[in-house]
């Protein structure tokens, strides 16, 4: 129950949930979803495949093939649910952990690996899949998303913008500025906060004294907390928020209540700051297991289906690995490329000097 529920009235539960950890469908007064068996199988496949790519990336990092990797383990439902809610013309602005959303947008996972391998800083065309570049500076992309949404308004287009950020990011000035901007301009933007309980080693209590979704009311727009491990609920809530945004009803904050099951990144050691029991408790709320249980119970798929998805996942893992290892290192002179869009004489001068220097080693 929310603390400020009107007296006597039955307030909706604080956490929007449509599928329990045990795989039971439950009702919510404000949100519902009607999915075909085909769609449910599709969501299950997404969840499994993005977890598999993530696992492969962690392995590649361990073997020295990636410099670092930020795992999405545990956050698959939040990302697939929200990612699959997007219309093609909607625009998504990610952090560095949105591999599941990237998957939904059709971005090749090898592009993501290239960034963490150090081949480039991203390099994909945001306009191609309506999926912006990964942003590493915490919170910066929230303002880009709002600006983009203001552009959508000026184009009189029917599109929404969604922006992802973490619980830690909610303390950043840029995120708070973006809330203000979105509010006063009534921008068609959905703020999707994955509260995975941790910002590296800092627990949520270091960022906020109130549930994050309630921050929205101070800025003048609605906020909702959704079970971030429930792909149905994440899909339903995001779909509604996007539709509202598209139809001119302005911004909304979604707090997806989830858990970072892995380390912050492959460089991190969570045993230094959190107890193992916490992870064990969250494992019982695993985003994939509950969908599997639901499908079994309702005979939406048989063992053959699950085996086929697992086989597809293994193939994908192998393919991604192979193509990651084949990524060539860029040429040294690529350092000077794309710094400016138009000719810039300092770049030309230094490129020529560097080329001459390198040539000195030849022969």
């Amino acid at each position, binding site marked *: 129950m929310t603390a400020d529920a009107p007296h006597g009235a039955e307030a909706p539960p604080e956490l929007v949930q449509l599928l329990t950890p045990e795989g039971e469908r439950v009702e919510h007064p404000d949100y519902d979803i009607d999915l075909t068996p085909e769609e449910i199988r599709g969501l299950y496949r997404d969840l499994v495949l993005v977890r598999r790519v993530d696992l492969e990336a962690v392995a590649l990092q361990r073997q020295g093939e990636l410099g670092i990797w930020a795992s999405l383990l545990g956050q698959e439902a939040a990302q697939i649910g929200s990612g699959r809610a997007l219309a093609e013309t909607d625009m998504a602005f990610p952090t560095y952990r949105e591999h599941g959303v990237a998957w939904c947008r059709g971005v090749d996972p090898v592009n993501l690996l290239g960034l963490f391998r150090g081949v480039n800083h991203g390099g994909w065309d945001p306009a191609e899949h309506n999926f912006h*570049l990964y942003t590493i500076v915490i919170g910066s992309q929230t303002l880009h*998303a709002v*600006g983009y949404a203001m552009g959508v308004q000026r184009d009189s287009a029917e599109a929404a913008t969604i922006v992802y950020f973490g619980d830690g990011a909610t303390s950043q000035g840029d995120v708070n500025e973006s809330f203000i901007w979105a509010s006063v301009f009534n921008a068609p933007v959905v703020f999707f906060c994955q509260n995975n309980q941790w910002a590296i080693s800092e627990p949520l209590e270091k960022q906020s004294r109130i549930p994050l979704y309630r921050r929205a009311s101070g800025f003048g727009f609605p906020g909702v907390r959704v079970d971030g491990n429930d792909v149905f609920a994440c899909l339903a809530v995001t779909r509604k928020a996007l539709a509202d945004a598209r139809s001119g009803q302005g911004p909304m904050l979604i707090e997806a209540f989830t858990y970072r099951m892995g380390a912050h990144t492959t460089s991190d050691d969570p045993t230094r700051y959190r107890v193992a029991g916490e992870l064990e408790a969250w494992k019982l709320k695993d985003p994939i297991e509950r969908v599997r249980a639901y499908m079994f119970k309702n005979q939406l798929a048989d063992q053959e289906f699950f085996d086929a998805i697992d086989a597809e996942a293994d193939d994908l893992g192998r393919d991604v690995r192979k193509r990651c290892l084949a990524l060539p290192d860029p040429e040294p002179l690529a350092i000077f490329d794309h710094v400016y869009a138009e000719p810039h004489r300092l770049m030309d001068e230094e490129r020529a000097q560097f080329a001459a220097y390198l040539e000195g080693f030849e022969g």
Partner: protein
Amino acid sequence: MSTLTLAKALNEGMRKAMEDDPKVLIMGEDVGKLGGVFRVTDGLQKDFGEQRVIDTPLAESGIIGTAIGLALRGYRPVCEIQFDGFVFPAADQIITQLAKMPLRSLGKVRLPVVVRIPCGGGIGAVEHHSESPEAYFTHTAGLRVVACSNPADAYTMIQQAIRCDDPVVFFEPKRRYWEKAEVDTSAAPAGWPPFDQAQVVRPGTDLTVLAYGPMVKTCLEAAAAAEEDGRSLEVVDLRSLNPLDVARVTESVRKTGRCIVVHEAPVYNGFGAEVAARVTETCFYNLEAPVLRVGGPSTPYPPSRLEDHYLPDLDRVLEAVDRAFAF
């Protein structure tokens, strides 16, 4: 030809850019009804509407961050930072995002965003209203940095900056906003000098004075005074700080054999250091004296009752000229 103040020339330049391209937007604090605290955007909201001339919330990071988003959607935002000393809340967005996003995308993203910054002192203002922060931005790859010094350049350079597909930090000499000059608003853009090109604004033979923004006028006055002493100074308005027009600078210094570089910003690690190093490299065998720098003391900008002592003036420039000739 019309006689325009520098502020009005900027205003006319922006107006022309907005007429030419419906994607050009103006955004900033008080830029709408008020026309900006210096009136540089006066009348633009009235004529182009609130969708194109946007009074923003009071948050500089938000201005630049949302401008980036608008640029991603195909717009060409021209952002006003109200005063030099207030660009720092936006520094993160300018340095980590605006400057680097095009490279991050391997050239697929272009960010034609102009960041206008009224800069420099001499107006008797309180703290944070008289600074010259250009070196922070010239040090950031991915940005172009330019400074206009007179109404004619203001008119053309602001349009060139808006038309440029790279982000441009555009410094405006606030104490020169009200100075008037003839501006040819009918000349075809093809005939304008490129905005990354330096201009010789007074030819001379004995010493090259390099300056930009508010110091150009000071240096021209110094050159006039020096002439009475029989010294012929060539004054070069750098106009573009990143990239620097090394070729034109070199051409001048090879001819004169002496060079001083003048700016309001503190000398230590100021933009003049880069210029001096470059000139030393390209003109070493032509130099009769080391390149000397004239600028503010390496202190914070002082209270306004002291600013006349802080800002380089005609005498400080001439003193440096004397030193250059004494070698």
